[in-house]
């Protein structure tokens, strides 16, 4: 047992409103470290999308054009779904285990926590998307006109959107059962309306209007732009900005659900 002579008040300045880089990266490193203790989850996150793409390639063995369309869209949808699930469960655990309350009683900004999660799962999403994109392009013969880097960019933005949505809905889930049920509630309607099954302009006008305000539609549109055009088109830039904007907006909403004082 030792005594310390340090005076904590002068050592640790009070947190300011801005992001603290050291606290953000410490949080991201902690989230990744937690995952490292759970190799099965990592393996599932990285391998399942690859296996699905592989399956899809041979389901559409007779019509490679269909595989091109659906495959490219799925490269954007997988990261969104995986990150949604992982984030909603991870933050729910943070809320129920009391660690969130402990962190918010410490000098951790809400922004630091959210940015830390986004950074950690974003890193994982890059690895996942790189694996899936690489497999699709070079082994499964996915025919993409544009640059694979643009596919990766959209995939990363989708992953951020998934993280943001997961964080947000975890505030409304009281248990892990509920959190998992938010997946079909939040993701499936977007999946049906995003243009994966049929082009959005073929839908009933009412549904098309709804699909126009759902972020996943723009994720799929962006992927299709890369599929069909060699250059970065204006439509691609618009789609990517919309997805990124939605992700930031929902992250902001997620931050608002973290309360330092609770009943």
């Amino acid at each position: 047992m030792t005594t310390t002579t340090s005076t904590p008040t002068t050592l640790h300045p009070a947190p300011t409103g801005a992001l603290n880089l050291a606290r953000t990266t410490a949080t991201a490193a902690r989230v990744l470290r937690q995952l490292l203790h759970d190799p099965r989850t990592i393996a599932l996150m990285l391998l399942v999308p690859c296996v699905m793409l592989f399956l899809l390639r041979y389901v559409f063995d007779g019509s490679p054009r269909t595989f091109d369309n659906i495959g490219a869209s799925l490269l954007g949808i997988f990261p969104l779904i995986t990150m949604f699930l992982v984030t909603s469960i991870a933050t729910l655990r943070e809320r129920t285990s009391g660690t969130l309350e402990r962190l918010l009683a410490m000098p951790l900004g809400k922004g630091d926590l959210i940015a830390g999660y986004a950074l950690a799962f974003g890193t994982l999403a890059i690895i996942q998307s790189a694996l899936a994109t690489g497999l699709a392009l070079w082994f499964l013969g996915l025919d993409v006109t544009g640059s694979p880097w643009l596919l990766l960019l959209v995939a990363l933005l989708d992953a951020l959107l998934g993280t943001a949505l997961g964080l947000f809905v975890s505030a409304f889930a009281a248990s892990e059962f509920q959190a998992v049920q938010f997946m079909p509630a939040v993701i499936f309607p977007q999946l049906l309306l995003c243009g994966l099954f049929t082009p959005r302009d073929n839908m009933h006008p009412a549904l098309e209007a709804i699909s126009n305000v759902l972020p996943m539609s723009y994720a799929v549109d962006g992927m299709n732009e890369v599929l069909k055009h060699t250059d970065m088109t204006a439509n691609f830039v618009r789609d990517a900005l919309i997805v990124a904007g939605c992700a930031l907006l929902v992250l902001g909403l997620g931050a608002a659900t973290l309360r330092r004082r609770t009943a």
Partner: protein
Amino acid sequence: MMNYSSVRSDPPDEPAIRAETLNVVRGTRQVLRDLDFTVPRGQITGLLGPSGCGKTTLMRAIVGTQAKVTGTLDVLGRPAGHPTLRTRIGYVTQAPSVYDDLTISQNLAYFAAILDPGHTAADRRHENVTRAIADVDLTNHADALAGNLSGGQRSRVSLAVALLGTPELLVLDEPTVGLDPVLRRDLWALFHDIAGSRGATLLISSHVMNEAERCHRLLLMREGQILADDTPDALRTRTDSETVEAAFLHLVDEAVAAARAKETTR
């Protein structure tokens, strides 16, 4: 907005915690009613009372995580929940709040990085982590996953997190629940050391009355109100009791009788 930086240190004779007509409502229920008390600095104050009497709510109000708090509640010279207090208070919840999928040292390293961030502080953080793990006697388990530890060990990890930043005020919610007698004795020795040599203030809740004898001062609570605020000796003398437990029961009976008398005169 006050300029806090000019107020370097509060006068030492000022209490660590001062509450005046403190009220807390949860839902429709009034959990704390018009509390008035002070907690002196550099001492161990025990917060005792049956489960459900409002101990945890009071502690959450003090550390600033409880919503719907009205009245005056000053902690270390600032209103409770003030941002500058976040590095000066260590809080341990009743259920251990640590990451089960991290090792003990990884848990502590993360919380240390939140309290004292940056590369330049790395050595100091490492020292603090090693000391905190030694303080709760878990050095041999430092690389074990928190989820694989026993209940008592996990609550000690949670306690170690609160010891990290050498806080001026430690708020501990039932820290010795479920621990064996040897560990309990060691932890109480640690608490006295923290109060004595580090000059920190400790507020420790318990519903085990024999732990009360080890505190410098006691706050006895019942149904959201404070029954007594005194030293253990003074309490026993005043109620003519052998133990604090007997003193508490005496005070409860008195309070019940007073409440009945009030009912009948109405």
